[in-house]
């Protein structure tokens, strides 16, 4: 018999509220199955199980706030017998016991295929405030229950402030600015080759298989990190732990306010096509307010891109315990000098904010230039 513990939810969250038990006692579970959902300031996070077995019983009721590291359920292995009386839930303070989590499998079942109801965090919050039973809401299979659906039920009109998420962002960014001696660099890169490559690739493709230029940013950063690994990893207890794989956090804006940077796993090993699919899946789940605990805690570096409607450049704030964040400004047509001629090119400003405890500006500059270099040869990414 083993206990299934509440996993880490990222640097800025210490607890979450159990909102869904997706497996009933007596049901079999496989390593990697999503067995529960927990609501946090950043949305609903799906919790995966890390072993095979049979769910013996839930130790925590729906609606209970549970600290990181506290037991959520007990799981019976193959040889174990069923327990007569489930153990009393004893939440353990997060500072006395850290959850030990074996590396879960990388393959994720897309959440869209799950049969249970999808409910956005805002809808859930509103329903709770108004005392609405969401089980009574009729929705088509696969349909997400939004705040608007709940409002329709209740006739509620005013939006509640997103103060929880703002507080979480404030806490982690304060910690970053307090603890991390940031230094900043910027570099103007010509994106004409990358943009042409995306246009040519997409010309013969149906919409589901099209690329966005941001996938080339991801791949170029992953490539550059191979040569400059001191920007990829975690700084914990006065020591830098370099990561040998790139879990690239993608800073993603949430509609209605807020920001989250869940990880694209093993970006260095994936080709551009599979990275693009992973990125679409991840952003879709962020938009639905639903992602995996590991996606929030395991990113080793972050990319923040302003997209096509932003401004020239941004200077990121490092997400602890990471040590670097790469920013990409909005690409625009600018005059560039090439072979003594002024020509119009599509350019964007790349920026780096990095941790001086681990690296310095000289290496940072080489890292940024390496990203630029990879963007000049998109076909080999």
């Amino acid at each position, binding site marked *: 018999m083993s206990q299934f513990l509440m996993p880490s939810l990222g640097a800025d969250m210490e607890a979450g509220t159990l909102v869904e038990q997706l497996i009933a006692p007596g049901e079999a579970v496989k390593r990697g199955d999503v067995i529960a959902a927990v609501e946090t300031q950043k949305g609903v996070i799906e919790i995966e199980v890390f072993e095979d077995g049979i769910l013996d019983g839930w130790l925590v009721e729906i609606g209970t706030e549970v600290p990181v590291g506290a037991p959520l359920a007990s799981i019976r292995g193959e040889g174990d017998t069923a327990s007569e009386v489930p153990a009393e839930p004893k939440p353990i303070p997060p500072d006395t016991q850290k959850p030990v989590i074996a590396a879960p499998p990388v393959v994720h079942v897309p959440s869209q295929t799950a049969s249970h109801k999808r409910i956005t965090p805002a809808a859930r919050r509103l329903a709770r405030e108004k005392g609405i039973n969401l089980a009574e809401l009729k929705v088509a299979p696969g349909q997400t229950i939004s705040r608007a659906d709940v409002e329709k039920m209740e006739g509620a009109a005013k939006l509640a402030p997103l103060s929880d998420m703002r507080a979480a962002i404030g806490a982690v960014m304060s910690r970053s600015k307090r603890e991390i001696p940031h230094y900043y660099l910027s570099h103007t890169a010509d994106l004409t080759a990358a943009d042409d490559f995306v246009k040519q690739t997409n010309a013969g493709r149906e*919409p589901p298989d099209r690329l966005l230029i941001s996938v080339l940013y991801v791949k170029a950063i992953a490539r550059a990190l191979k040569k400059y690994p001191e920007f990829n990893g975690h700084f914990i207890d006065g020591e830098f732990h370099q990561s040998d794989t790139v879990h690239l956090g993608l800073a993603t*804006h949430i*509609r209605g306010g807020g920001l989250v940077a869940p990880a694209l796993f093993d970006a260095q090993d994936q080709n551009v096509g599979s990275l693009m699919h992973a990125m*679409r899946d991840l952003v879709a789940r962020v938009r639905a307010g639903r992602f995996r605990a590991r996606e929030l805690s395991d990113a080793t570096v972050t990319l923040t891109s302003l*997209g096509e*409607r932003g401004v020239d450049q941004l200077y990121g704030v490092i997400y602890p315990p990471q040590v670097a964040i790469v920013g990409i400004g909005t690409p625009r047509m600018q005059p560039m000098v090439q072979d003594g001629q002024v020509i119009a090119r599509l350019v964007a400003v790349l920026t780096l904010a990095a941790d001086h405890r681990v690296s310095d500006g000289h290496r940072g500059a080489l890292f940024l230039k390496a990203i630029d270099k990879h963007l000049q040869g998109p076909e080999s990414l």
Partner: protein
Amino acid sequence: MTPKEIEAAVIAELHQIAPDIGMEDVDRSADLREEFDIDSMDFLNLVTALGKAFGTEMPEADYPQMRSFEGMVSYLQEQAG
């Protein structure tokens, strides 16, 4: 499909992507991305969904014709008609 039906289909897909923006708040002839505050990923998802619903390829070279709500509706009308 009548123009009304096409319009309803586009509104439904936009509501999936930008549920917080109502049609009464937007300028139908202005840039969709500004009016609905959507990024390039959202726009690609919109094109993917509409391409599937209308059985049309929605080539990237035609994106300029789909930039406003009105433009999108008349583009789909041409394709489906």
